[in-house]
């Protein structure tokens, strides 16, 4: 019988020898993980630390405890507006863009390969068009050259131009439309690929079992076998829904009227890049991180229940 301490010693030795044997693996991982640590992990850990300090990039950070967080929740009305806008924005664009990716991918996949290729490009193009979304600014323009205003006025729906981008009641709506326009990106491609990969024989078997139309096929055959893609798509869309910023700042201006297009990320930009109150900006970032992680946790649970993963 070996004593417990010797057993542990042997385990440690075998772990060490496994690590030494895998040194080639670690060497190959090193370049990526060094950069990953430097530009993703370290910033997040650093932000967690700085969120408890007062820091302006020049002086040494001064520890202030929970002051930033207290200020954020009790003393910064603008943050509450930003949080509220981000929440409304994410609750609307997240699900819509997710289902738009899924539904358009599904419909496109029903067509023949040539049409499928063309339509995939048409729907995917906005997400790789860079700054082209500024063109929506002209379409929604509030002056007499705005196409939407002209169109609605000539049809008689409105009597005078609507200030789409400066009216606090409409601007968030415009940003939502543009974000959805741009949101058929990586998850959309992932869904198209997932749909093409479903085993063809499943459909024939399902037809024998009484599946009578395309919608039933989608619900009973396709979706259950696309679990991994559905999870991946959710991760990508949640990340995008909470991080909207450049669309807001470009279309609605910065700051926007009554802060109507202020989101958490533009609030971070305001404190970080404009006022250089880094400690406070980092506290806002931490709240956003926690928010995204918890939403993701809930959504992943729901999806694992719907599909076999």
């Amino acid at each position: 019988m070996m004593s417990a301490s010797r057993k542990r010693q042997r385990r440690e030795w075998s772990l060490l020898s496994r690590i030494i044997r895998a040194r080639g693996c670690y060497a190959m991982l090193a370049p990526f993980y060094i950069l990953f640590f430097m530009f993703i992990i370290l910033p997040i850990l650093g932000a967690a630390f700085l969120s408890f300090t007062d820091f302006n990039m020049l002086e040494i950070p001064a520890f202030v405890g929970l002051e930033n967080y207290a200020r954020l929740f009790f003393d910064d009305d603008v943050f509450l507006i930003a949080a509220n806008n981000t929440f409304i924005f994410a609750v609307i664009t997240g699900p819509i863009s997710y289902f738009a990716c899924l539904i358009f991918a599904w419909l496109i996949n029903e067509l023949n390969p040539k049409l499928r290729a063309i339509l995939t490009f048409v729907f995917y193009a906005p997400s790789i068009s860079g700054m082209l979304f500024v063109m929506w600014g002209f379409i929604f323009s509030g002056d007499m050259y705005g196409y939407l205003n002209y169109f609605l006025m000539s049809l008689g729906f409105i009597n005078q131009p609507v200030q789409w981008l400066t009216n606090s009641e409409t601007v968030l709506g415009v940003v939502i439309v543009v974000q959805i326009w741009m949101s058929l990106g990586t998850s959309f491609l992932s869904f198209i690929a997932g749909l093409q990969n479903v085993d063809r024989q499943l459909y024939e078997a399902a037809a024998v079992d009484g599946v009578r139309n395309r919608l039933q096929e989608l619900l009973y055959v396709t979706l259950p076998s696309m679990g991994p893609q559905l999870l991946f798509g959710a991760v990508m869309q949640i990340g995008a829904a909470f991080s909207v910023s450049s669309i807001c700042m470009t279309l609605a201006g910065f700051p926007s009227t009554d802060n109507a297009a202020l989101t958490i990320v533009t609030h971070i930009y305001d404190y970080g890049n404009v006022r250089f109150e880094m400690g406070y900006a980092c506290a806002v970032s931490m709240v956003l991180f926690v928010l995204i992680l918890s939403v993701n946790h809930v959504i992943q649970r729901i999806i694992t229940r719907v599909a076999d993963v």
Partner: protein
Amino acid sequence: MPKQQGGRHLGVNRSLAGDILIFAVLACFGAFMLLPFIYAIAQSVKPIEEIFVFPPRFLANHPTTENYRMLSQLTDSLWIPFSRYAANSIFVTVVGTLLNLIVASMAAFPLAKYKFPGSGFLFHIVVMALLFTGPVTALPQYIVVAKTQLINTPWAVILPTVALPLGLFLMKNFMTQINDAMLEAARIDGAGIFRVFVSICMPLVKPASFTLVIFSFQSLWNSTGGAYVYEEELKLLPTILNQIATAGMSRVGPGAAAAVLMMIPSFLIFVLLQSRIIETMAFSGIKG
């Protein structure tokens, strides 16, 4: 594969009427998706008097190349030669894309095909990091870049994109599909992990490599450099084209022309490699 799909196309539960309905729906939404593109192209070929005509017209009546010529005049008269901005963007895009491909593939291979202490954890944190898009980590990342000596060098733009989790994630999932017997044969012949990676793995994952190249290319090509480079000699193409476009009402035409020219490379690459991308994305799933 295509034959099989052709067979399914009008197979069980399919009707021509259904196909036509689906196409009609997609055509309507497709028109909405294309609206800004058509608008940008139309604006870029409108003579200036048509841009400011009231009531506004969507399409051009007398298309002209005037705006493109004006754009090239504007870019000729810059303080710093235009070719400098273009060269900066090309450098950042090409070097960044190559580095991203090499570094991400190298890390993906051991994670896909070897078991070693920490492999599960290392992949798991990359999957978690998929959640945090650029804008969310931008500020903390800026602090790190500013505290190193990277700020105001092209590397400040390149290196953060090399560490993006999506590249490693896609390569790893694709590499998992490689047949183990082939790798085993090479290992028995005495090839080390790096040799196996270069001579067996990489040739087999070409579709995934192309996909990574496209994602990386389009994000770097559209990158403005933001706060990372501030010296005029180092600024990137989108920055200067935005400056030209926003310089006033008379620049609406040339601005649209610049936007049209900027999007061509990304689109061209996507169209050429579309089928390869779809193939890669088939393995993009996350197992719960």
